[in-house]
């Protein structure tokens, strides 16, 4: 029995409204092959995390969070407080206790 991977996901800037107003949640991800048997990756990356979030936490208006296989342009992603653009974006491989934050910029002032 393979172990689960624990990461923390956070939502801000209005993105939390799509996730039942949850701003912060620790999640336990099952082994990738259990969740996505067809996945080409061996380990969890942000790409699979988005699918998991869609299936498990996203409660409304999916199109405001996701576009194609990534986040909707305008949603910023921070990996351990750092811009995901510095870390390979969707290809970033998740590590135990990573903190992944999604901040929406798509809202009024």
């Amino acid at each position: 029995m393979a172990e689960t991977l624990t990461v923390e996901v956070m939502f801000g800037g209005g993105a939390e409204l799509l996730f039942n107003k949850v701003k912060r949640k620790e999640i336990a991800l099952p082994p990738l092959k259990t969740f996505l048997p067809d996945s080409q990756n061996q380990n969890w990356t942000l790409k699979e995390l988005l699918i998991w979030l869609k299936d498990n936490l996203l409660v409304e208006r999916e199109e405001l969070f996701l576009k194609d296989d990534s986040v909707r342009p305008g949603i910023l992603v921070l990996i351990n407080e750092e811009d995901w653009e510095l870390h390979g974006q969707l290809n970033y491989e998740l590590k135990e206790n990573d903190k992944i934050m999604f901040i929406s910029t798509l809202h009024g002032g």
Partner: protein
Amino acid sequence: MPVPCKRGCGNNAVLKRPKTGDAICKECFFWAFETEIHYTITKGKLFNKGDSVAVAASGGKDSTVLAHTLKTLNERYNYGLNLMLLSIDEGITGYRDDSLETVKQNRDDYEMPLKILSYKDLYGWTMDEIVAQIGRKNNCTFCGVFRRQALDRGAAMLNVKCIATGHNADDIAETVLMNVLRGDIARLKRCTAITTGSEGTIPRVKPLKYTYEKEIVMYAHYKKLVYFSTECVFAPNAYRGHARALLKDMEKIRPSCIMDIIYSGETMSIKEEVSLPTQRLCIRCNFVSSQEVCKACVLLEGLNKGLPKLGIGKSSKVKKLLDEYNTRQNNLETAVKDLEDCNITDKKTSKTCKNISNGFKQKECNATNCCTNKTERNVEKNNEKLQTVLDKYSLENNSQVKLDEEDSDDSEIKHQDEDDTCSSSCGRLGVGF
């Protein structure tokens, strides 16, 4: 794998700057972010020493970051500005009431005086009431026109030299794009101006004109600034939404496109004959207007006369609508006389009913069902007669007034000022000021 800061300070980068593509650490980011805004302010000569400046504050990310940055720069570079916050309460329950709490937080955090002006006080209508009257279509027109004027009025009350708004680079690029898409060349000509406002008006300045939205959000996040981030509860502006989505998609492929679009807008040369109508003063409220009567006054008249369509769409329609209204009004006066006896009966019955139900006889009254039924019957009868008269003079009940489908967003948008359109989702510009 940590990425080193491009500036060679030895720290690890936290952010990839969209403007330059540079990887940069937190401290260097703060420095670059603030210094660029300082450069924009000094190069554009936005302020003079000793000026009083109102920051148009909505509680959103842009105005919160603007207030914070202006305070920082004012102290760091000794601008000598007297900064204050100016907020407009449109009266949108579940949206503006919450965001104003954030503005009050800004007031305390940044130690700036705060002035809040409400639509209710200025115009006698809240946005909630306006939407109840006109429906969800076109309501951004009311909100935008009223807000623009409300900001002017607030600024006049505060006696400030100018109003600083939180329009960011993404907003400006989006507006350039929209004006191109609409063929609105006159507005295209001036929408990139860092200072707007003509003679007699209090100028608006945009210190965040060259600041990317991504950096504003990251700055607020790293500085732990509290801002309000809920979308306006009313209908979003679909056209602007598409322009925004297009821009964001392009930014993903080529982040510099935002600066490039602004640059295109700034350097495009427009034929001389394309110009905006000359500014004058509204004969009713004395505020600056391009027409004899300003848009806010026309919209307000429409609301007060139960003609919410007035002022939506071409201004040439206004006179026609008003003439029709006046004819009906005259006819109605005759009709009202016919109705008078019926109204009196109704009033009497209601009064009796109220007396009974408020008094000790209530139980007895309910038991016999006398008053409720009686009142309803009378009202029904009254309504029948009223309806006949209304039909006769082709009047509509207020509750039934609907906006024509032909007055689509597009035709209405043409007559809006660049600042009119509501914020982000809701159009992005307005609520964020």
